């Protein structure tokens, strides 16, 4: 019962947040709606007893990705955010059709094939086990991931910095 209420509330939050995020003209509003979506999803993870993933979701998506997005918007848009530019609605109908088609294609096979287990097993959520799994069987993955993140960091800095032109004349006076 508790779980059901929570599920419906959280899914409503997540879907609404996502919808507002993709359709809102004002980008800053959009980003905050996206955060709401992320938060709703973190709640769902918590509901599924994936505690650490929920925490990581908040930490990474809301704490880091969200702020990165805000920075990118502040750098590329006028500060006031809503600049009144026309947002295309030409693709709106076809976008919807395509999305619904994908929705059906996505859902039919799993729903037909997987018998839904009515009840999940009782599990004891443990961050420690997750950590041990990361350290023992998946340590190579973890290291590769670390490498990837470093590469991404350097790549992002290089890409965002742009090509620095050598100054033609350093002091004109």
């Amino acid at each position, binding site marked *: 019962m508790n*779980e059901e209420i929570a599920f419906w509330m959280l899914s409503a939050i997540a879907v609404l947040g996502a919808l507002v*995020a993709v359709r809102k003209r004002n980008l800053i509003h959009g980003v905050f709606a996206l955060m709401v979506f992320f938060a709703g999803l973190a709640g769902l993870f918590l509901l599924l007893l994936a505690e650490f*993933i929920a925490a990581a979701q908040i930490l990474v998506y809301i704490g880091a990705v969200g702020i990165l997005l805000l920075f990118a918007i502040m750098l590329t848009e006028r500060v006031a955010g809503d600049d009144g530019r026309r947002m295309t*609605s030409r693709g709106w109908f076809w976008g919807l059709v395509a999305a*619904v088609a994908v929705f059906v294609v996505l859902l039919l096979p799993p729903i037909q094939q997987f018998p839904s287990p009515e009840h999940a097993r009782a599990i004891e959520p443990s961050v420690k086990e997750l950590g041990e799994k990361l350290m023992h069987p998946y340590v190579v993955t973890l290291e590769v*991931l670390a490498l990837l993140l470093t590469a991404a960091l350097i790549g992002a800095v290089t890409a965002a910095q*742009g090509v620095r032109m050598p100054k033609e004349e350093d002091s004109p006076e």
Partner: protein
Amino acid sequence: MTLHHYLILAAVLFCVGLIGVFTRRNAIVVLFSVEIMLNAANLNFIAFWRYSENPALLHGPLFTLFAIAVAAAEVAVGLALVIAVYRHFKTVDLESMDTLREE
């Protein structure tokens, strides 16, 4: 709550993201629509894990964890590219970045 509830929810979220990718022209909005789709996939991983036969293997959370880390890298690089593109075109409107198109 059954597994199917979560699967449907994830599919809905995925499609919402898809609508964003299809209909919006702003590169940043497209980027965060992709994020929504990615998160929908994560939800599926966690749901499948939770309803699996052997949750103690922790495959779902581990995969999601890696996915989140990769997504973080993706956003960082993606936004850096958006900024680089903006520096060049002075816009983030995807439809106006069409220098390859024949006029």
